[in-house]
């Protein structure tokens, strides 16, 4: 628990002092919205199109952070230090998952209002949408922490992480898209189908948190 807190505090402090990931993610998200505005030639979005634009943007912005998640550990010998330290290595996994979750929350705190201002007619669906996004964040953070560790130890580095991660995230995106679509419907949010998809998202999150916890030790063995 102490190790978890120390690693998490270190990560958040490093990000606050260097601001390497968060501004880039926010800027990327806003620019992507502008590109979608012209790519789709639409000034307002609703339903599945709105859900798709938002989720794809969040997904690709998240990839920026996931790619950089272990850069400090890799470049500065942090992995060796973790192996030498008398700590449970799942503390590293847990800390990275929480750090990534926090980054994504900050990203969405910027991206969601901008998205609403750019494309949405009413903000009624936003609070439940934020809950859906929180579940998406957990899934992104759990899979991202595992795959990013693999990527950090590989030769292909920045190439391998998105390559492996994208197919792994397809079920998460299916569920998130289906949950977000009725919330962004033209006539205001509808809640009929949402619970089924929230359950699917929760199942995905739980599965990959458990898998990540189970396999993480083997990724850092030497």
């Amino acid at each position: 628990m102490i190790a978890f807190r120390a690693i998490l505090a270190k990560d958040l402090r490093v990000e606050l002092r260097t601001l390497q990931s968060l501004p880039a993610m926010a800027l990327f998200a806003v620019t992507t919205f502008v590109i979608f505005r012209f790519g789709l030639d639409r000034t307002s979005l609703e339903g599945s199109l709105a859900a798709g634009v938002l989720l794809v943007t969040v997904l690709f912005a998240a990839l920026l952070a996931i790619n950089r998640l272990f850069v400090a550990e890799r470049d500065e010998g942090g992995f060796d230090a973790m192996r030498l330290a008398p700590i449970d290595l799942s503390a590293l996994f847990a800390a990275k998952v929480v750090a990534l979750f926090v980054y994504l929350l900050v990203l969405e705190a910027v991206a969601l209002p901008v998205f609403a201002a750019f494309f949405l007619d009413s903000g009624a669906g936003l609070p439940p949408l934020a809950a859906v996004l929180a579940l998406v964040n957990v899934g992104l953070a759990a899979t991202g922490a595992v795959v990013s560790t693999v990527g950090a130890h590989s030769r292909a580095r920045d190439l391998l992480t998105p390559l492996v991660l994208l197919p792994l995230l397809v079920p998460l995106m299916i569920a998130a898209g289906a949950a977000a679509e009725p919330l962004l419907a033209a006539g205001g949010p509808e809640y009929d189908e949402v619970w089924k998809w929230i359950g699917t998202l929760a199942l995905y999150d739980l599965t990959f948190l458990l898998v990540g916890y189970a396999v993480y030790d083997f990724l850092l063995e030497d």
Partner: protein
Amino acid sequence: MPSRQDSLLSRLSLEMPSLRTTAIATVIVLCGAFALAFFYAPNDADQGFVQKIFYLHVPIAICALAGFIVAAIHAIRHLRTGDPVHDMRAYVSIHMGVIFGTGALLTGAIWARAAWGKWWVWEEPTLVSFLIVYLLYATYYPLRYAIEDRERQARYASVFAITAGAFVPLNFMAVRLAESLVHPRVFATSEGGLPGEMLFTFLVALAGMALLFVTLSRFELAAKATRGQISRLRRALDSEAPSAPTSRIAPSTPADTGRAG
């Protein structure tokens, strides 16, 4: 030293006579299955002759998925014991699974074209799930290839196999929930499913395809074990000569690991 390599071949029970037996059994059962499909099983009332591809497409797809599950089981055993033999088995299972998966996607596209008039049908949850699973497992090769250290490569490949193994059922669930049910539900429908002749033919075809999967896997395992043995013998003959290059993606045999050390 030679006994170590021999014991690897016998541990995997890959001696030539046993390999030949599975190969012959595969040929007999597969030929029997195709004969049954063409001459015994009745033509489908709805789709006619085109439906015969069912006896090829579905067994291939089932074997590919089973290969992924088997790989996950071997990967768990590899992480628990650290024995590279399990990593080899997991690698070969995924390798065969990807090859069979390619076959399943191609035959599925042909069937879709014949039955629905389109090469690809997005409303078809099983086909879409299969494509997603296939895309994920296709990244197994770049992942292995990108990690240089042999032991770490094996460990990461096992972690991948386990994670992807957990992914397969989740993915099928999510896609099925999202799509309408177009795929023929042939085994459990309200009309009672497949007629007896079709079911029997299908089961023989499934057994034949499973045998083919096993035979090809065993041949690849034997090839890997033999390659390790040859490079070790070559080194023993001339320790000065540079060693023969081995595949960079393939998992190392114990002999290879010995050479690296």
